[in-house]
């Protein structure tokens, strides 16, 4: 009997020791999808046949002594903006429901090369922006902790499927918080790596200069395992960095004592006021980091609305430029949330966009200056636990400044880490942010925090 919940690291150990067969593991996940996804809607498309075949191949390879590493035989899901050879990649949109790519996205190929088994394509907000929407060909994903609640987005299906144990890890993308938001609301660990660390080639874009691809999983260790496979230079992505990739998993066990942490309290206490449960949980997390030997001090940056204005302007303009032709030709084929948000992108001028780019340089310099004598900054991932799914306004992004978009602007590695639960059992979280290409430091601190706290021991009761 395969347990309902396993981390990637736990399953990998069992597979390597031949105490768990990839075929058994995949079959158990397919049964779980069959049992639970009718109420979670985390999958757009389940790839049972190809998953079975890949599992048998993995089992034979491992039996022949050809173990590839900790993703070998591990079931994962792909946000349906990651292109897959011969399998529709829709962006959760009617506009691309018949789009069948010829090849895999660069990062998908790398995950398959590492032995991961793709279980299917996961729900997303339409083109990574539009949700939650009820007028698309597929329903929005539901939060496994309470199905009347929002998963966060846009990597909604990844958040739901990993939290529910339907897959052990999944891919997300993050242009303004789309990995960290659903990781926060679904209680996962999710890292938006440094800009350029993972190729975006073969991933449907939202905004070229802000888009990041990344892993979402149950633990920091699992994120490290997935990031190891996904990272690497790709000349086909002009933003791809060409530099050595460290051993992220090995780096987890390093010392965190002495790390210098800056707490950006005003982001969530003044600029986008978090509820008491969130504030208390972050206070406790800061205290925990201090007990681990970090020095924690408060820092002040420009107010959050300044960051949000810069990032949102860039995102609206770049995404409008991508969808401009289809918006003209097929406006009502898009969901209402997506198309009406895109209308605002059409109303922003070229001068506004250039002013946003100038502001971006100033803000990058500001964070770099603030971090000159810091290793990490921390703040909230979200101002509260997951709200009811039917109470997310169409223009929510304009009503309250985003807590996550500052680090898309700066390209910094930023991770959402669970830091407790509300009295009603919904996850709470905070962000750990590092210097560009110090992803290993972010993962190391997140891992140390997870080891020191009990939060990874609780799973949704489904």
């Amino acid at each position, binding site marked *: 009997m395969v347990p309902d919940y396993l981390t990637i690291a736990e399953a990998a150990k069992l597979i390597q020791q031949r105490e768990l067969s990839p075929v058994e593991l995949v079959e158990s996940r397919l049964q779980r999808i069959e049992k639970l996804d009718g109420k979670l809607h985390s999958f757009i498309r389940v790839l049972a046949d190809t998953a079975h075949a890949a599992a048998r191949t993995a089992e034979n390879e491992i039996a022949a002594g050809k173990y590839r590493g900790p993703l070998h035989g591990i079931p994962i899901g792909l946000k349906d903006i990651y292109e897959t050879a011969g399998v529709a990649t829709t962006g959760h949109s009617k506009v691309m429901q018949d789009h069948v790519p010829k090849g895999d996205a660069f990062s998908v190929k790398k995950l398959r090369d590492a032995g991961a088994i793709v279980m299917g394509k996961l729900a997303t907000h339409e083109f990574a922006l539009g949700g939650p929407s009820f007028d698309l060909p597929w329903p929005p994903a539901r939060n496994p902790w309470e199905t009347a609640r929002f998963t966060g987005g846009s990597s909604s299906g990844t958040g739901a499927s990993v939290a529910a144990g339907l897959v052990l890890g999944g891919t997300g993308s993050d242009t303004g918080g789309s990995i960290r938001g659903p990781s926060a609301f679904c209680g996962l660990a999710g890292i938006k790596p440094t800009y350029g660390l993972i190729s975006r080639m073969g991933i449907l874009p939202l905004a070229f200069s802000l888009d990041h691809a990344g892993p979402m999983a149950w633990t920091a260790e699992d994120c490290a395992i997935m990031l190891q496979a996904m990272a690497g230079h790709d000349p086909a992505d002009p933003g791809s960095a060409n530099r050595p990739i460290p051993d992220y998993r090995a780096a987890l066990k390093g010392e965190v004592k002495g790390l210098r942490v800056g707490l950006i309290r005003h982001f969530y206490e003044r600029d986008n006021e978090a509820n008491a449960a969130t504030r208390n949980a972050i206070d406790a997390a800061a205290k925990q980091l201090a007990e681990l030997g970090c020095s924690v001090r408060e820092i002040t940056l420009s107010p959050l*609305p300044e960051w949000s*204005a810069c990032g949102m302007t860039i995102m609206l303009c770049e995404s409008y430029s991508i969808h401009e032709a289809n918006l003209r030709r097929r406006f009502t084929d898009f969901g209402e949330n997506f*198309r*009406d948000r895109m*209308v605002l992108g*059409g109303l922003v001028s070229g001068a*506004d966009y250039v*002013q946003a780019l100038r502001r971006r*340089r100033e803000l990058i310099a500001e964070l770099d200056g603030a971090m000159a004598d810091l290793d990490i900054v921390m703040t909230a991932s979200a101002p509260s636990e997951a709200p009811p799914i039917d109470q997310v306004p169409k223009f929510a992004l*304009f009503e309250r400044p985003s807590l996550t978009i500052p680090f898309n602007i700066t390209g910094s590695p930023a991770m959402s880490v669970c830091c407790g639960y509300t009295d009603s059992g919904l996850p709470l979280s905070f962000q750990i942010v590092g210097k560009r290409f110090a992803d290993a430091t972010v993962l190391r601190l997140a891992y140390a925090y997870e080891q020191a706290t009990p939060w990874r021991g609780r799973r949704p009761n489904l």
Partner: protein
Amino acid sequence: MTRAELDAALGRLGLDVSEREREEVVAVLPLLQQMLDRLRPPGGRDVAAEPAHVVKFPEG
């Protein structure tokens, strides 16, 4: 931006937006304008301030 200005802008963009959705977009335009106003420092930027995008050609 007034409703009439929005209608004109949507006409230029070639977007087929329903009456109901136009009303909802008009209602959020003040928030969009607040956002755009934040991009410019009070008094504006010096015309000689650093350029936003400098095209960096490959060396050599």
